């Protein structure tokens, strides 16, 4: 089927040609387009093209009450919504000077790590699929659903949790919830050898991913790369440890890193983070019964809530890298300006463009998935 206004164009004979991947393409994460100029199989230039999922959230948030914006924040990045919520409420709390009860902070950490697990399981599947290995995707989706079950129970929503609120969280945990978290964590951990067997030690995948989309540490730093992608170049930097928020200072965890800086190293870092996230979640599960008290400090009536004038920049470590909200209040009942800095704003645009130069066509999709680029973060 051709569009109505389609007209075949004659091009002068050339060795070069253009190819559009996306906005709807299995090799692209989300609704996003990547325009390539190719010579044979080799990419000469790649141009990212966003805007297919632009919802104008930052503008929208300027028109809503501080608390109404909670419903928007998780929608910015669908696979990993919790860091969006948490960093927004951290910004509001910083502006208001709210003291968040300890129990709420631990609950936030639990959500953040569960969300990281779910997001990584999602990404592995996507990444494997770009190399033609679909089983990981099916497994990842099925296992991710177990985490979503936990979210459903804890927050009332499977994907858009809207569970964090400035001052704390909205509800305490249901009865027996921690046992079920423990069970799910045990199960996920028991699945890791299967995943290793299927993907991470699978030579089909290893050979395919090694040497793809390689960047050096210097390049990564220059290009503003963050998160697992940065750690895959050997720099052990993690916002959770180096610019700590919530109660991460009290938690024990390693920061996995790799040296190679290619698609393989990035995936491997995520695979190792899965273990660390399970470890952190277990610490929370063990600690929560001992941390009693409220889950939210008193907050004003949402309809009457004016936040003191000022600005706050709050960073958290999402599954994809450094995520931050810059929130400005002019003392009003709504934010004067909110700006979200998603890690994918670097990864999906400049980094992807730079890594694609000289790459082979079949590696483009893998490069994008290995960067864990999330176009909704770019579009907002």
């Amino acid at each position, binding site marked *: 089927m051709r569009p109505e206004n389609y007209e075949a164009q004659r091009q002068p004979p050339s060795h070069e040609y253009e190819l559009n991947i996306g906005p709807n393409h299995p090799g692209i994460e989300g609704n996003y387009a990547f325009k390539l100029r190719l010579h044979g199989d080799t990419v000469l230039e790649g141009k990212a093209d966003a805007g297919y999922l632009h919802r104008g959230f930052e503008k929208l948030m300027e028109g809503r009450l501080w608390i109404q914006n909670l419903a928007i924040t998780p929608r910015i990045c669908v696979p990993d919504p919790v860091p969006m919520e948490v960093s927004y409420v951290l910004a509001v709390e910083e502006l208001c000077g709210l003291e968040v009860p300890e129990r709420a902070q631990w609950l936030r950490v639990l959500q953040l790590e569960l969300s990281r697990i779910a997001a990584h399981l999602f990404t592995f599947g996507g990444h494997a699929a770009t190399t033609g290995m679909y089983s990981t995707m099916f497994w990842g989706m099925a296992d991710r659903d177990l985490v979503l079950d936990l979210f459903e129970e804890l927050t009332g929503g499977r994907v858009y949790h809207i569970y964090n609120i400035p001052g704390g969280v909205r509800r305490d945990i249901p009865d027996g919830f921690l046992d079920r978290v423990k069970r799910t964590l045990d199960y996920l951990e028991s699945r890791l050898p299967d995943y290793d067997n299927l993907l991470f030690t699978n030579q089909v995948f290893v050979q395919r991913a090694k040497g793809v989309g390689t960047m050096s540490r210097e390049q990564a730093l220059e290009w503003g790369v963050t998160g697992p992608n940065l750690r895959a170049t050997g720099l052990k930097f993690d916002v959770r440890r180096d610019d700590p928020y919530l109660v991460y200072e009290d938690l024990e965890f390693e920061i996995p890193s790799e040296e190679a800086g290619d698609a393989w190293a990035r995936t491997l870092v995520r695979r190792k983070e899965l273990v660390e996230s399970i470890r952190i979640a277990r610490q929370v599960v063990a600690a929560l019964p001992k941390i009693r008290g409220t889950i939210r400090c008193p907050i004003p009536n949402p309809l009457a809530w004016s936040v003191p004038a000022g600005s706050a920049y709050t960073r958290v470590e999402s599954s994809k890298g450094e995520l931050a909200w810059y929130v400005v209040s002019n003392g009003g009942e709504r934010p004067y300006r909110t700006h979200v800095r998603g890690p994918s704003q*670097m990864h999906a645009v400049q980094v992807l463009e730079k890594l694609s130069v000289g790459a082979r066509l079949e590696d483009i999709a893998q490069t994008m998935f290995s960067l864990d680029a999330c176009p909704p973060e770019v579009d907002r």
Partner: protein
Amino acid sequence: MSKDLSTWLDTLLNELQGIEVRRRSSRRIRVDVQPDALPALLELLRGRASYVHLSAISCVDWIDEGEFELVYHVWSYEIGSLVSAHTRIARDPGVYISVYDIYTPAAFFERDIHEMFGVFFEGSPDMSRFILTEWDGPPPMRKDFDSEAWVNAHFDFQDYQPDWLQEIEAKGGGVAVRPDEQRFSRRDLDAS
């Protein structure tokens, strides 16, 4: 190493003229700087004090003051602190200098700000459209652009006539308060 660097930072911030430094916490420093001095400050922060990571550039439209505020958030992996450099430029004509030569990530943020606020960055590698490719209106993040009015002017909303509503209307009831007629709807909330 990092101790030396933070000493460097202190010296640097003390020596520079015309900047205002506020330490908001151990890892957050706010610097207010004149627009002509900002590139030099960033250059020094990056080159001499290890602030190699440009986390973001945020733009705020202070329409009442006729100014755009540009905020450059830079992070030092070695010192472990975030400097937010605030500067204000005139809203009209809204032209500023690119810091792409200092920080590569600036290209994305400057392009984004150009698209959303209409600030032109001289020397930025690409000021073409990115997200709003087919947009023909004013830069939408400017405060004088009313997105709700635009939406109302450009889209039709679903009009529902369910059976239950018709039954209630037959009895003399019906829709009493539409969402936009709410006594304190979002439109007049600030006006009062």
